[in-house]
């Protein structure tokens, strides 16, 4: 897999015209690395992911995937260009079976049924624990199993860039640890990962580079080592205590 680079320049975006949430954000998401975005509530972390996934319109600024400008493209075009989003909270289709959920992960491959079938089979081979659950409604699974289905579904289309929003929310510590371990494995395969997380400690542990946003703007940034030392004072600063 050829690793992808995502470059965000002076990004301005929001839900209401004239009231941007992001006020000139700059990010360099390096190929085959885990880039983490941190910040207090309201900093604009999840908004960044929504814009990069094409859910939210760009008011100004640039988003380049390798050499291609993708700002302003609709969500389905972002997905087709190899960007996949794992949204915050559970996002399985509860009335569809696990197999149907996973198959829909390959929606962009639907023109090539053989390739789609192979991709689905490969994902079930990668996550053998899901195989016995294939015919169960996804909504009937435990929280951890649903997260596994979501990650499996994410990988069917073999995306080059993964946008991950709060992957451990609602999961037990043991399952959350597995999820973070899986993110590291996905990076090792050459996937570029942009992770937004409230679990600062867990996120920094797997980060290659960290950005901190505050009030929709870049605050501080640096590699993992720069953040590991003084996490406590950073978080206290966000909380204003």
């Amino acid at each position, binding site marked *: 897999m050829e690793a992808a680079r995502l470059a965000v320049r002076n990004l301005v975006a929001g839900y209401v015209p004239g009231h941007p949430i992001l006020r000139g954000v700059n990010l360099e998401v390096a190929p085959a690395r885990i880039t983490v975005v941190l910040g207090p509530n309201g900093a604009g972390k999840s908004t960044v992911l929504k814009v990069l996934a094409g*859910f939210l319109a760009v008011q100004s600024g640039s988003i380049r995937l390798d050499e291609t400008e993708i700002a302003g493209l609709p*969500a*389905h075009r972002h*997905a087709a260009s190899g960007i996949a989003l794992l949204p915050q909270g559970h996002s399985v*289709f509860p*009335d569809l079976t696990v197999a149907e959920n996973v198959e829909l992960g390959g929606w962009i491959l639907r023109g090539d049924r053989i390739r789609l079938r192979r991709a689905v089979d490969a994902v079930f081979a990668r996550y053998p624990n899901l195989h016995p659950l294939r015919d169960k409604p996804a909504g009937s699974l435990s929280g951890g199993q649903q997260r596994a289905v979501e990650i499996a579904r994410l990988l069917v289309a073999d995306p080059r860039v993964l946008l991950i929003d709060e992957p451990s929310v609602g999961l037990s510590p043991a399952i959350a640890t597995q999820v973070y371990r899986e993110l590291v494995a996905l990076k090792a395969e050459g996937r570029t990962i942009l992770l937004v997380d409230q679990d600062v400690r867990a996120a920094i542990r797997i980060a290659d580079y960290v950005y901190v946003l505050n009030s929709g703007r870049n605050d501080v940034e640096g590699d993992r080592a720069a953040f590991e030392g003084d996490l406590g004072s950073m978080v206290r600063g966000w909380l204003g205590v």
Partner: protein
Amino acid sequence: MPVHIAGIVVNGVLLGLVYAIAALGLSLVMGVMGIINVAHSAFIMLGSFLALGLLEWAHIDPIASFFLALPIFFALGVATYRLIVTRVERAHQTQGLIAMFGLMVLIENLGTIAWTTDTRVITVGYSNANLMVGSLLIADAPLIAGALALLLIAGFRVFLHATLIGRAIRAMGQNRDAARALGVNVRALSAVMFGLGIASAGSAGVALGMIFPFAPQTQIQWLAWAFLIVVLGGLGRVENTLVSALAVGLIQTAATAFLPFDYVYLILYVALAAMLVVRRQGLRGVVRRAI
């Protein structure tokens, strides 16, 4: 089973099948897209007049019109989605309802201008024919309409469950943003779903026109019937709509057999009111998206 009871059951089931396709599109569009399309019944009325027009002008049998209505009304549905629904789907739900109500009134009034308020009937060779099964007498027209309806219901069921695009439509109804994140063009699929809903309404109009007299203003009765079935059966599932429509068909047929005619409509309208009270979430509670 006494013959007249068997007749009530058979006729009730046939009627229920036709009612099911009258409500199917309303239920799916509400369940999957969150759109309360009160103009649905106006398209049913247009379907009846399409069958009448094709019969009078081109001698096309209503059975053929049933299938011809599908692509014609699908195109009408997609056009309605693009011209009207997309303009109000992000607005407050009331605004969407008013827009669809306006469309319903517009279609009914255009129908009245075109066809007057006179009641019409579709008369073909089998309109007054009957089939004897043992000692059971079954009218041909409801039998044919019921069989066509069953075919359409089966088609919808297979489409939504056995095809990838059908599963994507169901997925979109369960989690629109997650579907978008997978690359599903939800705007395009919404147009397809709305088109299918209107296509089923058009074909339902043909089937209803084979059984009942109709006029532009009778569409409001089909709206009440369709809502009753949707409220009774819940949204977005073909099988729920079918079961609830069969119940309505059986109740109506039984009531017609045992009660004066006027009471039949009273019973069904009271049932609609009672269901709206009992299912307290009503229609709004299950509609997640605006319009």
